[in-house]
């Protein structure tokens, strides 16, 4: 075995491994028929490579009456296969082996019946040592009415290392040969030989025309460099040329791998047709940051994260008024008539209040749209099957996603009706100030009664309150108390607005973080797994191409 053969076997091995990977990753993505064929090719290749590499299986194929059996006999030099004028003649495959050692399992694999196996004994081999290792098969025809119910010829044409198409001047352009086999075998030049048999029926000029026409026809069918040999099994002309071609093939010991390579090439072409390569820029197995952010944004929108923040800020500001606001304005507002009351819907106010205690939740339809948009953006230019594969992967958990999102976000979302402790303190402070103001009022009253109008002596111990001279000071104090209340209300209000702004930012950040985490585990990971499969498939396709 030459070095070249070893190398080509290795190359073949890695391509077969790639094919195995494709068969593994393919279900659901590639036409099942093609996958089955790939599996069959894998099996066949495995079998053939295990069996004797010293033998080359050469099949004589052709239509009925083209002279396969006669040619078989004249190559082997013995009347092994029956010939005749009745059509079709041969119904079972005959095999002749040059050099029997190790050929048995191969013949078993080819399913050649025992009684149709012949071996050229060594005595006969003299002068034919170059054909040593040849297993010559005489196939039944493939085009007669008998062949309609018998696939033996088909089967062996698929597995032979080298196929010799035996054609004759009458049948060389038959559709049954060309459409069913030759067109399929484009790319198999190295392991296909065309024999124009019965050349004795034509004169030289006609033969040349015939060969030219045949070559032209083969060209048109995609056989670039057809090997065409003209023979006459009857007169023996050209048989030696054919033997020479066979001997060359046999001695190189490469036909088996070449055949498998050619089969692989063809399968690769078909696979590539249904699964075209996506150019040089294979999508990365991971999803880039822009897309992650896009998905997170979309999911945040679906959960209403920005709106939640805004609502929190607004509701806080509105509600804080009830606690830290200047009590006087509140009381003044209460004095105004309430439209709800006039509708006898006073209890609605409580309901509105309780409404703000609702939790955050995600909108399923928007979640779905967000996930779909991610998958769509990723898959542009991909094959249909993979597009839907990635879409399915993205959606694999999207049924639970809204629910999980809602639960996760509810954990961080603040209750909008909560009341911080310092609001209460400030309320107490405001009431204290109101108390002071009321006290001041009382002082003023006392001073007025006793000090200004002098309606009597103030009770003992309250003289200081009856002193009219304290009036300006008391007035000043009352103004200050009012002012202090107003100032406190304004300051704490500003403080709340500022604080809730900060809190909103923090809240949004936290929510985003959680949404991003969920997006990662529930959407991006499955998608990345599928993308990895996709890339593996693509690289398998590339190494299959060799």
């Amino acid at each position, binding site marked *: 075995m030459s070095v070249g053969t070893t190398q080509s076997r290795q190359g073949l091995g890695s391509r077969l491994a790639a094919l195995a990977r494709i068969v593994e990753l393919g279900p659901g993505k590639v036409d099942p028929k093609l996958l089955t064929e790939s599996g069959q090719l894998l099996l066949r290749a495995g079998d053939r490579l295990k069996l004797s590499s010293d033998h080359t299986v050469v099949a004589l194929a052709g239509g*009925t*009456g083209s002279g396969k059996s006669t040619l078989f006999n004249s190559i082997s030099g013995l*009347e092994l296969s*029956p*010939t*005749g*004028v*009745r*059509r079709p*003649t041969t*119904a079972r495959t005959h095999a002749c082996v040059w050099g029997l050692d190790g050929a048995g399992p191969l013949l078993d694999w080819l399913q050649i019946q025992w*009684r149709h196996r012949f071996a050229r004994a060594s005595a006969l081999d003299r002068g034919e040592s170059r054909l040593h290792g040849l297993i010559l098969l005489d196939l039944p025809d493939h*085009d007669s*009415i*008998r*062949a309609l119910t018998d696939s033996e010829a088909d089967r062996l044409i698929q597995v032979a290392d080298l196929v010799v198409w035996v054609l*004759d*001047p*009458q*049948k*060389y*352009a*038959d*559709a*049954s040969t060309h459409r069913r086999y030759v067109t399929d075998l484009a790319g198999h030049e190295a392991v296909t030989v065309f024999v124009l048999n019965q050349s004795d029926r034509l004169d030289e000029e*006609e033969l040349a025309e*015939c060969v030219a*026409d045949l070559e032209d*026809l083969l060209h048109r069918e995609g056989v670039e460099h057809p090997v065409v040999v003209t023979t006459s099994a009857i007169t023996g002309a050209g048989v030696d040329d054919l033997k020479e071609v066979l001997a060359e093939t046999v001695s190189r010991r490469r036909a088996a791998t070449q055949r498998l390579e050619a089969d692989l090439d063809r399968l690769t072409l078909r696979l590539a047709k249904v699964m075209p390569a996506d150019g040089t820029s294979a999508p990365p197995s991971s999803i880039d940051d822009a897309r992650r952010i896009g998905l997170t944004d979309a999911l945040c929108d679906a*959960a*209403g994260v920005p*709106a939640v923040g*805004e609502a929190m800020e*607004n*509701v806080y*500001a*509105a509600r804080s008024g009830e606690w830290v606001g200047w009590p006087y304005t509140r009381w003044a507002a209460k004095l105004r*008539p309430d*439209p*709800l009351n*006039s*509708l*006898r*819907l006073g209890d609605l*106010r409580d309901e*509105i*209040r309780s*409404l*703000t205690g*609702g939790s*955050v*939740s995600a*909108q*399923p*339809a*928007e979640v*779905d749209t967000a996930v*779909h948009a991610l998958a769509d953006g990723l898959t542009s230019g991909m094959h249909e099957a993979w597009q839907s594969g990635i879409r399915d992967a993205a959606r694999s958990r999207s049924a639970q996603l*809204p629910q999980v999102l809602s639960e996760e976000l509810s954990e961080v979302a603040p209750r*909008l009706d909560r009341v911080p402790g310092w609001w209460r303190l400030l309320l107490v402070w405001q009431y204290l100030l109101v108390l002071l103001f009321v006290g001041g009022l009382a002082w003023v009253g006392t001073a007025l009664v006793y000090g200004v109008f002098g309606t009597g002596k103030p009770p003992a111990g309250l003289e200081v309150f009856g002193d009219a001279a304290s009036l300006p000071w008391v007035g000043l104090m009352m103004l200050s108390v009012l002012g202090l209340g107003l100032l406190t209300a304004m300051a704490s209000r500003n403080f709340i607005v500022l604080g809730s702004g900060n809190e909103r930012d923090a809240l949004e950040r936290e929510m985003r973080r959680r949404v991003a985490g969920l997006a990662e585990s529930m959407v991006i990971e499955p998608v990345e797994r599928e993308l990895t499969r996709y890339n593996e498939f693509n690289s398998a396709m590339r190494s299959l191409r060799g």
Partner: protein
Amino acid sequence: MNRSQEKQEERDEVVVLLADDGEIGDASRERHREEPEDEAESDAGTPDTGGAEDGGEAGERALPGDGVQRDAGPAEIDEQAPQEGETGEEAQGDGEAGAEVLDGAGDVDENDGNEKAGGEEDAGSPGDRMRETPLPDAVSEALSSALTAVRAGVTDLGFGLDIPGAEEARRVRSEILAQLDDYVIPRVHTSTAPALVVVAGSTGAGKSTLLNTLANAKVSATGVRRPTTGTPVLACHPDDHEWFAEGDLLGSLRRLSEPDPEAASDGLVLVSTERLPPGVALLDTPDIDSVVEEHHEIAHRMLDAADLWIFVTTAARYADAPAWRLLRLAKERGAKLAIVLSRVPAKSREVITKHFVRMLTEYGLGEVDRFVINEGKVTDGMLPDHEVSELRLWLTELSVDERRREQAVRATLDGVLNSFRTRVPALAKQLEIQVAFRRDLRADVESAYAQALVEVDKSTGDGSLLRGEVLARWQDFAGSGDLMRTLQLRKPGRLAGKASHQAPERLSALRSALRTGLESVVVSAAQRAAEEAASRWSNRPGAQEVLAAAAELGQASDDLPRRAGRTIAAWQEHITELIRTEGVTKRSVARVISFDVESLSLILTIGLLGYGASEARNGTGALPQRLVHALLGAESLRNIGVKARSDLRARIGMLFDDETARYIQALDGAGIPDESAATRLYQATYNLEVAR
């Protein structure tokens, strides 16, 4: 090769002897057949012993008459090489003698007898007095109008969906059309026209050579290139030339005077020669089995127009599958057929002939006229004339015996019309299948979108829409006091109806959140429906092509979000309008309270979308309902609610209708007529039967 003139005159029938005189010789020789050369084919079934041979012969003898089935198929027949040497010459000599003693030969040779029987049946069975006149005008008229109806019916058909059988139906449709145009309609109009004999067969079988020999001129090209003949060549007697040049028969083909490769598919070379008898025209066709597929098509088209078929095959090809397909076709059509086995090597003539006859008999074609032509030197595209003398006689017979010709023509025409009995209804049946399939496909789409509509209905009614942004905006709107500000007490001195316009940000944020939410529900339902419809289609064999033709069908259409947004916005406008026009404020309320219509419409929408539906109903309903109820009264609320809801459904329904229209369009693009075409076709077939 000869015939018995005396016999024919006596019995007024034609006996064509296909087995030549060689057969007589063969028959005698078979009784002491030589040992087969080859023993290797030991599994072939019949060991070549003398006894078995006798048995085989006995079977053969019994075979033609009573149609005994032979269990040995052609493939298993063991090899029996002919005796080499001078047998052919012997046979020739015997044959010359045998010509004179034909009756005797008929007695000894079972094949020969069989042929005679066949001949009798062909010619004699319809009785002694045949109608020679063409069809009466009335019948012909009725027939041709019935045919025209069939033609119109078939023309109307289309099989756009690639379900199993569609390809076949398309082929049959164009076949029937071509057959009607090229043959049936012209033939019914002029049943006395010359008979058209079409020579068909494998490539390299020698069709052109045969024609040349019969015409005694090189009218059709011959050669070693396969396939040789691309343009059909029609050879006829000069008297008939005009008829074929101008007639309707094969009217769709251009008449040429010499082969023109440009016009291969629609040309017909027309030549006339004195050597052919008048009233019989020979048509050389392209092959039926070469790599050039157009040839098969042309050949079949010619065969469809034939009055008689001459099927040519060779010693190397007689077992080929395409040849037998053609024979089966001829049998199905009931076409008048003659078989020529050509290129037979003289030395193995009888073996091959016997084998071929046996195969034909098994196929039920044992009684067909047969001719055997030896392989001979072809000079200038012609065989030696004596090889075809029998065939020439057969043709001459056809030419002279007008009744027989008429009968052959009628038989083929009847065969074709009979075939319409099944082929045309089969087409109609196929059309019905297509129509039913289209209906199924439509139903797939419609149910997917109906499902989507139900989903939308559900999620717009159970409050599930009030999540995410909508909910937050609603909380914002209600919690920040804007909800309360919707209502205003009328103050004395202020103008009635001048509701205060509040800060619009939160209001419009809520409004657009609602729109976005609804829009996404609609779009996502439509998207799912599109995927569902596409996947249902792709699970149906035959619909994939339609799907592939319009790749975007698996997705909602691109502008759907935009249209959905517009639709929802319009719906919101509509609600506002409803409140403005139909929302008659309770008089007791109207005196004291005014409200902002925009805000109220949003509150109403929230209520419509099922706000609080999930919470326990405590009789009073949820906040929005109660508010609207208090403002507008129960009846208004109900009216507006029902109207708004059905309006939303109608609008979304219209959106989805636009979506489904894409599928319908794709289906219509496939081009299938409606069911009435099938009915018309059945009717036309029935009328045709009546007219006959």
